[in-house]
């Protein structure tokens, strides 16, 4: 079936470096793609979204890139800080007449080393 997944389950970076978290998706009909951050013991936190007709969107220290040709989504975090350590989920949103759906990937654990 349709799925959203992640290339790597874990990513370890040095503080101050840039981080890139990748995601592959399979449903080309999805309307939005979203990144969530989940810290230990907390609920997922919305980071940034991108509409399917866009290639790039920037937020505060984060950039999301969407490559529809290869069905690839990435989250770039600039100057990674210890507070960025968390699990990052990509999700895809599809709106259909039968109802809308947000489908989450498995998540990537980002560890920031001091």
């Amino acid at each position: 079936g349709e799925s959203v997944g992640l290339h790597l389950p874990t990513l370890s970076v040095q503080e101050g470096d840039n981080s890139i978290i990748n995601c592959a998706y399979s449903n080309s009909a999805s309307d939005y793609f979203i990144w969530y951050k989940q810290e230990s013991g907390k609920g997922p936190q919305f980071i940034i979204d991108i509409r399917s007709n866009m290639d790039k969107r920037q937020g505060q220290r984060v950039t999301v890139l969407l490559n529809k040709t290869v069905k690839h989504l990435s989250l770039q975090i600039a100057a990674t800080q210890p507070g960025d350590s968390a699990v990052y989920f990509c999700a895809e949103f599809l709106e259909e007449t039968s109802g809308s759906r947000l489908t989450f990937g498995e998540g990537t654990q980002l560890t920031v080393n001091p």
Partner: protein
Amino acid sequence: DAGITQSPRHKVTETGTPVTLRCHQTENHRYMYWYRQDPGHGLRLIHYSYGVKDTDKGEVSDGYSVSRSKTEDFLLTLESATSSQTSVYFCAIGQQGWEQYFGPGTRLTVT
């Protein structure tokens, strides 16, 4: 957590007992959702609501029911809890379907 509370935050119950989890929001958002999160499965949608008394099933709705009698409250009920329903349950709210804000979660253990 964007004006969302969940209660209880932790619960241990026995197999076969009914359980109700409550989600309360102060944001007046239209949409409310219940997810469960399990290792190896990520977040999976159980049920969602698109308005008062308007609900629909998600990916893993078997064994669960929901009710939304007012905008701010969304209840998730396990009519007869089973060990397979041991999980962390998250409520989420949103004005648009793709931008969802999650509560702190409820850890449910069914023994």
